[in-house]
């Protein structure tokens, strides 16, 4: 075979056929991903017997009563708890992490290498590993079965990732910024709040979005450290709901949709920041 013939890209029918097959495959995969999610949403509008008898069919009389029933059966409370725990843990995690990231990137502190190692070292620890002793500790500290148990645990276990993420961004900001602030007579506190933090907005948005996603979906700690049904967050509450309502599947589907939709919206709205956070967090 001469070199000249191989230089030309393949043309004609085989090429078009390959392209079509490829497109078919990618679109088929889209259906595999999207269909179950749509099925979940549609099933929430059906009746119990429709779900069991004709799972593929559309509802004869779409009804959103299931949402009212789901909210009544506890989902309203779970939703509120999720919002509360998520928003408070976002505040504490982002603040603690931004402070630490500032100290570990813009100023010199004693033992900075050790501190960095201790904080980022937390990245490699699985939550399960601390689980058994945490039960005793949280009980003796009076945190067991309170919102604070989750808020503090979500903070402690996510500070490593979030600090790592924010520090990676802050370290690349130009040195002159701090020097200019210093010449203007700003204290460190003023430099942090007035200069460095505003300049880090893009990565802070990424950090907040990823923390929302984590806290909203977290299951293990929520299962173990909250025992009152009135305190449960959505992931654990939904599991409870599904084991309780074996005769009202539409309500379970409604609860699942209520839990899923906010994160889907968040993903589409904050996509740019989302992708940035994920790729910076894993790639560095």
């Amino acid at each position, binding site marked *: 075979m001469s070199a000249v013939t*191989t*230089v030309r*890209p*393949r043309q004609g029918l085989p090429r078009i056929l390959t392209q079509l097959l*490829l497109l078919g495959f*990618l679109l088929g995969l889209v259906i595999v*991903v*999207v269909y*179950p*999610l749509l*099925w979940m949403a549609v099933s929430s509008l059906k009746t119990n017997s429709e*779900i*069991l*008898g004709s*799972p*593929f069919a559309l509802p004869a009389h779409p009804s959103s009563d299931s949402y009212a029933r789901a909210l009544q059966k506890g989902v309203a409370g779970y939703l509120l708890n999720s919002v509360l725990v998520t928003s408070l843990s976002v505040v504490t995690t982002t603040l*603690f*992490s931004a*402070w*630490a990231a500032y*100290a570990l990137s813009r100023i*010199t*502190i*004693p033992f900075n290498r050790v501190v960095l190692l201790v904080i980022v070292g*937390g990245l*490699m*620890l*699985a939550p*399960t*590993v*601390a*689980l*058994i*002793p945490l*039960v*005793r500790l949280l009980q003796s500290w009076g945190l067991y079965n309170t919102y604070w148990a989750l808020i*503090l*645990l979500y*903070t*402690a276990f996510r500070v490593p990732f979030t600090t790592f993420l924010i520090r990676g961004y802050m370290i690349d900001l130009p040195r002159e910024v701090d020097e200019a602030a*210093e010449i203007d007579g700003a*204290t*460190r506190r*003023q430099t942090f709040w007035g200069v460095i933090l505003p300049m880090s907005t893009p990565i802070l948005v990424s950090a907040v979005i990823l923390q929302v*996603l984590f806290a909203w979906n977290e*299951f*293990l700690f929520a299962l173990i450290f909250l025992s009152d049904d009135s305190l449960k967050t*959505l*992931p*654990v509450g*939904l599991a409870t709901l599904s084991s309780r309502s074996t005769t009202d599947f539409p309500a379970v589907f409604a609860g699942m949709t209520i*839990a*899923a939709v906010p*994160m*889907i919206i968040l993903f589409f709205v904050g996509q740019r920041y989302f992708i940035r956070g*994920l*790729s910076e967090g*894993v*790639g*560095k």
Partner: protein
Amino acid sequence: MASAELTVVSPPGTTRAAGDGPPPRRPRRSGGARRRWSGLVWVAPALLAMGAFVYYPLLLNFRYSVQKTNIFTGQQRFVGLDNYIRLAGDPIFWRALTNNVWYAVLSIVFQVFFALVLAALIEDMRSPRMRAVLRSVYFLPSAISLTVTGLLFTFIYQPSGGLLNGLLDGAGLDAAQQSWLGNPHTAIFGIIAMSQWQGFGYSTLLFAVAIQRIPRELYESATLDGAGPARRLFSLTVPMVREMTGVVMIVTISGAFQVFNEVMVMTAGGPNNSSQVLGTWLYEAGFIRNDFGYAAAIATVIFTVTTVLAVLQIVHTSRRRVA
């Protein structure tokens, strides 16, 4: 570097100190030790939170794992390696570990190899909008709680009225119909399949970002040299994203040894312990049987596996930095 004028300890408060006025200029170093130590205030909240809720319990876990707790009196006594010996002789522990290994192997196939090829196919498409839409749609399930996707697949796998059996029926494969999560031979694989559905888009997105960082000229010259799509994938894309592949692989394996949520929601380890994983077996030991020492020993196994993987990851990334 360090600001010379900061002599007063200023904790990072919630409000900005207004009207501090310009502090007097002083030569560097005159602030002395006090100035330097005050910097620790910035990292104190993070260190305190992690010390209390991550490192302290982690250390306690090792102590628990060599103790036996009397559930009636709450007294703990030292039993040496007894818990670990019991663990080594526990067939369900080995079943759980095997299931975690299956989880890891199948996740590597779908969330590393398949995801990499998929990302390359997507990034090879001409329309930027199409690329963006595909990446986002595939990622979608990763944004949703594992409780939701787990419950969703429990419905899909249901013996009657479930989507999967309905599809098999429609395809004339009624013989293959079964109670997917109720059968001890298929339960864990049903869960793993759900997990691949949920997670492949996440690593596809990461690979897509890595592929975008490869200079376009390399592809142009490869095409000019007569390299077809397959050749470009294996001789150009795969070597160029090797770092990302390494990181994704380690993160995936580490995740496979930490699975809990989806198993708990879908089977809780059943039927007949066939779908137990280390996480659920630890839960059952610690919170159903109140056998804290035994549960702590399982936690040590999880710690060992994930730490070895984390060290591998650090070696992997630092080698790249040096190279």
